């Protein structure tokens, strides 16, 4: 049986590195994924994920209980947004990067029909649409829609009220819908149908 989280945290605080690495193993995928979705860049996400755990180890004493996952994701999303900002300060580079961003590495698992449809360009497009959101909305979309966090936990991550999560998510989704509509030729049938219904109504 796996030791529970508070125990791991306590042992980590006492200097047990293997206990801390157990925490790392448990959450590194989520930390990496949230960072990657906010940053839209896997190399940066890798750096941010590593930095997240280094920072977490340093500030373990600052963890006051609650959800360890939320705490780690909070560090990760803060670092990701920092990285986004510092990249924005060099606009020439960021433009080039946006044009030539390498696609995400997808583990080759048995592709279902939907996943098949989502390959390549569409995946890129969705990520680009997420990237077009303002940072605060992007973080909430990454947490709730991509990572599947509850509103409560997402609120803990961003350090705001649940109401803030709700409104950022609602705005972010509407915006996302609008930018996805601009690439309707890539969208699966389900989405195009809605689009058609809308066009005939309007």
């Amino acid at each position: 049986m796996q030791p529970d989280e508070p125990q791991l945290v306590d042992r980590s605080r006492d200097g047990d590195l293997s206990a801390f690495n157990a925490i790392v193993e448990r959450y590194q995928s989520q930390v990496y994924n949230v960072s990657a979705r906010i940053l839209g860049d896997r190399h940066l996400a890798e750096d941010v994920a590593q930095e997240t755990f280094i920072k977490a180890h340093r500030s373990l004493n600052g963890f006051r209980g609650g959800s360890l996952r939320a705490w780690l994701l909070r560090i990760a999303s803060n670092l990701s947004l920092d990285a986004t900002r510092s990249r924005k300060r060099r606009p020439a580079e960021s433009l080039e990067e946006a044009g030539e961003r390498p696609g995400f590495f997808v583990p080759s698992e048995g592709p279902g029909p939907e996943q098949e449809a989502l390959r390549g360009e569409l995946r890129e497009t969705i990520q680009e649409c997420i990237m077009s959101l303002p940072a605060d909305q992007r973080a909430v979309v990454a947490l709730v829609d991509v990572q599947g966090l509850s509103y409560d936990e997402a609120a803990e991550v961003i350090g705001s009220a649940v109401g803030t999560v709700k409104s950022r998510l609602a705005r972010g989704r509407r915006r996302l819908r609008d930018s996805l509509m601009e690439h309707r030729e890539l969208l699966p049938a389900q989405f195009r149908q809605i689009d058609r219904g809308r066009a005939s109504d309007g």
Partner: protein
Amino acid sequence: MVRLFGRAEQRRHELLSAYVDGEVTAEEAREVEELLADSEDARRELAELQATVDLVQLLPELEPPRSFALDAAPKKRWTLWWPSVRTTGLATSVAAMLLVGLVAGDMLNVLEQAQFGGDDSEYASDDSAFALADAPEPAVQESAAAVAMDAPASPEPEVAVMRSVAGQEESAQAPAAPAAAAPSMARIESSEEPAPAAAMQQDTAEAASQTDEAESSEEPPVAMRQAVVEEAPEAMEAPTAQDTAEQAPQAMESQSSEAPEAALQQDMTEQAPEAMEAQSSEAAEAPRQQDTTEQAPLSSQEVQADEVFDDPDFDSVALPLAELQIFAAILAIVLSGATLVAVRRRRRSVL
């Protein structure tokens, strides 16, 4: 109205969005269902939201390229404690107010000196028509009497400061006449008393007046001067004649505020030469003189100035006003820098 409508709209979007996630209360769920039953738009919006969420959720989970486990415990890094934006902001505004206060106090008193010297030139020039227009005779005489009584009796710096900072109402009470009284008293005093302090006073006053001689744009009325002459002997007898002498410029200032254009002109033209004049006389004379000249610009220092004159041993009380100003300026700049850093840090931690 539009805003209200916008708010209701936003609430509807939020409700529908939360409904997709099942993050609604039973009551909100009923509300959404009613909305969906009534509104085609709401139904379409919900479908679009659902499709968007489905699409995003179909993004594959990314495999981390490597393990992020730590090889060794990272060194504890010393993190700089930084005060909050509220703290640094408050400190900055306090420093800024201090600076403004010091500079304003300094300027007001430089003006005083300008007036102080300017009065001397009155006697050299008979051109008083200009000032007559500014200060109606009866008012001047009345208030002259009032302040002549007032002046020696108010050695507290608070009073002095209040008066110098006063608005129009108070400046109406502060007469123009004692201004003229000041130099004459100072001169009489200095001629009768061989005390070095008094001599110095005259030095300064006369040095200052030389720069002003050319600008006799603000001449007090003849009546005023007469009032001064009447007042002068009394003031001379008082041990704190200095008080009156130093408060007088404030009165002049008040007069200036009644004639805004003239005052402004004088502000601009006289401040710089005056300050220089004061400083050069400082430099030329003994350290003792520095006390006098440095005290003079600060109205809240009148009592101290008096003490200097009264007590020959008491000669190092001068407030280094210039240094204080520089200090306050540096403090304000440093603190505003700290505030900027705090703002950045907060923005970073907000997410």
